[in-house]
């Protein structure tokens, strides 16, 4: 048995695998299939100040080796999260990353402030949702806005603050440096890539929102590249995600520089994916005689 535990911003994870925000709700639906304790952590569904109904359906489309979604941050609001979902998750043996979002920097700060008196372990600030008209990716695509919203949230929270970055930018490393300077404790990447599909028989986009976020195995090489670039640009830890669907993928992302790994669309293909990924990572490390998963973080030897 290899040691799979990692530490990110001083928070101990028993293993580096975390279901990504949006695919896993608040965990209840998957507890029917396996104990959540098997996971290193959970990034909860993006939660805003007030309830959001989300976008009109269809919100989902298949793509080659992946999918598009345009859910549009449907969520019950932060008060419901704190009263109903968080207490349930805190009874589990895993790290809870509360993913939060807002239409304005003020709203993001207000949501974060409400979490300050809770026992949530980390805050993951979403500045990269491609599916909402205001806020969302707009914050994540300029260094100034990314820094501004990070600063505002930093000012109201002492919790470890992870800022989730958009890949829909020219230089993700520059954005990462901006949020690091603004006080982020870690960054997580990549959120989905903006995509589109059209039904050629009707001439209509498949998604009612016309465009949506692409995820799944197809985006994995982009995630590896971006994690590597960001890990080289900042000193704070990087949580990697994007198309991870096997233990080997998770190892690869960690070699690129990730300290922990989130799993998204793979869960739709196989709901047990995060659990299997933990087992596969252990098997691979054992087969190589590597004692701890920490020994592979950022070990890629670039040409």
């Amino acid at each position: 048995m290899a040691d799979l535990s990692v530490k990110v911003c001083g928070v101990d994870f028993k293993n580096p695998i975390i279901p990504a925000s949006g695919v896993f709700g608040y965990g209840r639906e998957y507890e029917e299939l396996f104990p959540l304790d098997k996971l290193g952590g959970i990034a909860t569904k993006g939660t805003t100040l007030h309830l959001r109904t989300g976008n009109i359906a269809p919100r989902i489309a298949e793509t080659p080796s992946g999918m598009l979604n345009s859910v549009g941050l449907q969520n019950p609001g932060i008060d419901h999260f704190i009263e109903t979902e968080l207490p349930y998750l805190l009874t589990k043996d895993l790290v809870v990353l509360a993913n939060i979002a807002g239409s304005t920097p003020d709203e993001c700060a207000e949501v974060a402030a409400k979490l300050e008196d809770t026992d949530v372990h980390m805050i993951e600030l979403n500045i990269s949702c491609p599916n909402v008209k205001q806020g969302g990716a707009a914050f994540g695509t300029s260094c100034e806005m990314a820094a501004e919203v990070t600063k505002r949230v930093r000012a109201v929270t002492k919790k470890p603050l992870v800022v989730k970055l958009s890949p829909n930018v020219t230089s993700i490393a520059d954005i990462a440096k901006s949020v690091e300077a603004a006080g982020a404790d870690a960054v997580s990447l990549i959120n989905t890539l903006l995509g589109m599909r059209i039904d050629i028989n009707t001439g209509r986009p498949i998604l009612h929102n016309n465009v949506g976020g692409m995820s799944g195995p197809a985006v994995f090489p982009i995630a590896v590249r971006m994690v590597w670039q960001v890990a080289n640009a900042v000193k704070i830890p990087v949580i990697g995600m994007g198309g991870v669907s096997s233990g080997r993928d998770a190892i690869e992302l960690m070699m690129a520089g990730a300290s922990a790994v989130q799993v998204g669309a793979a869960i739709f293909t196989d709901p047990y994916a995060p659990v299997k990924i933990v087992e596969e990572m252990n098997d691979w490390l054992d087969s190589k005689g590597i004692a701890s998963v920490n020994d592979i973080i950022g070990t890629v030897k670039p040409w």
Partner: protein
Amino acid sequence: MKYTQGQYIIADKTAIAREIYSFTISCPEVAAVACPGQFVHIRAKGYTLRRPISICGIDKEKGTLRIVFEIRGEGTAEIAKLNKGDLIDMLAPLGHGFTVDPSYNKVILIGGGIGTPPMLPLTKAYGDKAVAISGFRNASAVILQDDFRKTGAETILCTDDGSAGIHGFVTQPLKELAEKGGIDAVYACGPMPMLKGVAAICKENGIFCQISLEERMACGIGACLGCACRTVRNDEEYFAHVCKDGPVFNAEEVLW
């Protein structure tokens, strides 16, 4: 909620019409808890998203489920390649099924096209209290009529072009029966315009109506919020989810 994910043996496979297949799947733990109106979420090799397919038969004694599905695209084409003896990967049973009320004396069950299969286990539950109306494009698209007759229900067949049964839509015989009275409930699955028509007739005649909807879906269990459906609950608009709150909804809740 009670569902599992696993690999199950396909005990039987038949092509029952052009590009429409019937699988009988040996899955005792799923069959034991499955209800009419629920669905199974099937993995298609090489595709990210599973495909939701409604349950067409539940045999709790034999521990089998039957599904009948049409090839709609690449994913269902991939599933259709599976053969008798192969393993099929299912997350099941999922969703909220039809309300079966033993106190009802007469119910009408309506299936349109590939919306017909989920009506079969419900028809079986009501037996001779049921009138099963099925509608298809034409005679060559007609499926499951022998199965419906075997349940003891009265069957009415309609085709759009009149090549089999009544020439016309399912709403025509429904309207006649509804106006005669004595109907406790109407259940329907099929294309949206059909469901809309059925719901309107039921509203007019004050009959309880449940409909089964479909939507593009990812997780299938209510976590990802992908399959939204506009509904009204307690006078407030509410984005319900077809996979968990549905696929069966009370027609009066749905905002068309």
